[in-house]
């Protein structure tokens, strides 16, 4: 198959970038989108040119390293991450535009590689249950109804890729934050810190420059892990409880 690629090239965060037209000829229909980029890159390298920088790792949709926007859609068409997109889904001769995630809080490092450390800082503010190794009671001591465990798992499936913020017109990270808050706050182990967690993670999110949710649901539409936007409702609820509890002195 043959494709016309419009690839975003940018030397570094301090340079401005532009689209470069690259022909991707003679591409096997069976290969994945990333393997198509591998082929293009190896051709560039063989002629002594610098390949297009893009990140990937597990290539089976679970590590969350992919950060591509394909034809305007973060993580590309179909379900799953960009590594799960296959070339047979395109038509021969298609023009395909490939950009990095676009969000102020994800600055571009080079070409299609972005800096997502903002998500790390949000996690460090409250994305955990405070406990210490060795102090745990027997695992069977805590009974958790299957329905609750399943809901927590639905939210915990988030792969932390950042597509939600990249898709959102407000660059909101609330699907990511909501997924973690929902996962932990639903479980009995997470209850003691539930309000503090929601408050701390929302504040960290604001500090990073992410916007707020205004119900576009673009995040849910692109989420490769299928996280439901209802996690944002829980986040709002627990966040408000956190703010009120702090105002009345119920939590510090």
């Amino acid at each position, binding site marked *: 198959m043959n494709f016309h690629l419009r690839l975003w090239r940018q030397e570094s965060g301090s340079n401005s970038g532009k689209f470069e037209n690259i022909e991707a000829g003679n591409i096997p229909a069976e290969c994945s989108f990333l393997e198509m980029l591998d082929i293009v890159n190896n051709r560039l390298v*063989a002629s002594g040119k610098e390949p297009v920088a893009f990140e990937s790792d597990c290539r089976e949709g679970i590590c969350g390293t992919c950060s591509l926007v394909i034809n305007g859609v973060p993580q590309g068409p179909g379900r799953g991450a960009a590594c799960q997109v296959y070339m047979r889904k395109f038509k021969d001769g298609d023009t395909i535009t490939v950009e990095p995630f676009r969000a102020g809080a994800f600055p571009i490092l080079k070409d299609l590689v972005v800096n997502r450390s903002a998500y790390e800082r949000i996690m460090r503010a409250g994305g955990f249950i405070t406990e210490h190794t060795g102090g745990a009671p027997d695992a069977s001591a805590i009974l958790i109804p299957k329905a609750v465990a399943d809901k927590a798992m639905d939210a915990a499936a988030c792969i932390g890729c950042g597509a939600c913020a990249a898709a959102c017109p407000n660059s909101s990270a609330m699907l990511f934050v909501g997924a973690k808050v929902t996962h932990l706050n639903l479980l009995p182990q997470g209850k003691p810190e539930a309000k503090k967690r929601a408050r701390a993670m929302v504040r960290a999110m604001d500090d990073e420059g992410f916007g707020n949710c205004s119900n576009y649901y673009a995040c849910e539409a692109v989420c490769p892990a299928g996280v439901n936007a209802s996690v944002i409702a829980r986040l709002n609820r627990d966040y408000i409880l956190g703010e009120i509890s702090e105002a009345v002195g119920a939590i510090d």
Partner: protein
Amino acid sequence: MKLDAKIPAGPIEQKWTNFKNTAKLINPANKRKFKIIVVGSGLAGSSAAATLAELGYQVDCFCFQDSARRAHSIAAQGGINAAKNYQNDGDSVWRLFYDTIKGGDFRAREANVYRLAEVSRNIIDECVSQGVPFAREYGGELANRSFGGAQVSRTFYARGQTGQQLLLGAYSALSNQIGLGRVTMHEHTEMLDLVLVNGHAKGIVTRNLISGEIQSHAADTVLLCTGGYGNVFYLSTNARGCNVTATWRAYKRGALFANPCYTQIHPTCIPVAGDYQSKLTLMSESLRNDGRVWVPKKKGDNREPQDIPEEDRDYYLERKYPSYGNLAPRDISSRSAKEACDDGRGVGPGGLGVYLDFSDAIKRLGAKTIEERYGNLFEMYENITGESAYERPMRIYPAIHYTMGGLWVDYNLMSNIPGLHVLGEANFSDHGANRLGASALMQGLADGYFVIPYTLGEYLSSQFGGPKITTDLPEFKKTEQEVRERVNRLLSVKGNVPVDEFHRELGLILWNKCGMARSEEGLKQAIVEIKALRERFWKEVSVPGKGADLNQSLERAGRVADFLEFGELLCLDALTREESCGGHFRVEHQTPDGEALRHDDTFASVFAWMFQGEGGAPELVKEPLEYEAVHLATRSYK
């Protein structure tokens, strides 16, 4: 050189308890004075970094990914074993211990495996307390399932994403410690060398993958938690970035590399479709419950599968192993598939595939039942191959999945280099010649949460009052200089062949000659071919761009350069181990009916290799495996 595994005295059930009762402790005020480097942030690295920071040590943790959460432990699917006996089906620490020793074909160290089985129970408690959403029964109890190599249900799981949830648990504990300022996290930072001061591991040299900056880091001890070397085969179920560089660099600084020939090949993966392919995807082994494996009887029969009549099909597993049939063990299934393909009867592109046919099951049970059981796998298969397994047989082929070999460690998880500790898949210790399913996650977390926090004191307590280690020492400057030279050497070849091509070629050599079946002749050829390929690499490789920049060609070139050296040691180990055991099958050593034939009199020992300088032949050091608690027996597959 004589290896001392430092196994505690006493009966096997008492060794770990005895050890803990007499272990050297570091008091809290002194813990603050010690700095620990943890390389890698998978299950072993994240759990170790978080736990040691909780204890009060100063921790620096490094990963090459952009986040600790992306380490390849995240991709593990099936589950984690623990001897909880919640099912009341007769499980015990002893049974988990015995199953693991037997599954490893009696080539693992008894005392380590017993400890692993013992602490397995604590891991589940720890993970639940962190909020890992394990599968539950309606009443709220934890659910279990059964896995290969066991007659009890002891596997805990979180859908098909157990590795993801366990890693996110460890990552959340790590994030907490980073937020508290007790761990300094270095993402996008790759370890390129180990620094020894007076023969002790006291630091590392890293390259920042964004800026290209090469930098030294000093500490009181170094923990390598850098995973396995499956990517030496190029195509594997590993992530693209998985590499041998950290452990190989440690080997070249004097750490012993143990049993590199013990590699695990998983029988049911989606086959290679062409030269462009970058990785292989696992299809759950459970599919073999309802699928029948076959290839055409005639060589080069390229008719469509539905056009091949019953009498022209060879259901080779059912034919060769009538009692196990399609559920023959992993190593047998993998080897048989390779034999059929080597015989020219493989199917699909390149003839490297066999059919896994569900048509009988669909006839018997209906498509709906099959969809209920395997729908998500069929969907994944169709997404990747564009073929529907409801309409035509799946094509599958074995792929490299895990590596049991790794750096040699003693009972304390310390290598022969004082101060260098090795955890998780990166060490050699617990799985022998074959790993059982759901045991990799168990070992990674056991090492990080419950072993190293106790054993680290043995080394650190000997380090009081020593001179302060800083990166100003000449040892750091010298190692840093050597790293810079190696980077510059890669950039200055200026050939025109992309790194991937060398990697792919290396993978083919190893896969064909040191894969599922190995022979003396093939291994000798492989060593010659790898040497020649390495020479070509250093003349023809193309690494465009600069060192002081985000340069992915350079990252890969460094890793492949190390694989090109390591591959030779892998073949040498396979050549020296003149027996068959677990995942290591030497064609010269098989029973008349084609089963693995061990030679316990000569080979019941760990083979650990010591670097003897560039071009020198590595020296073999043996650690005899003394079995006190179990009797060596032949694994029966029939």
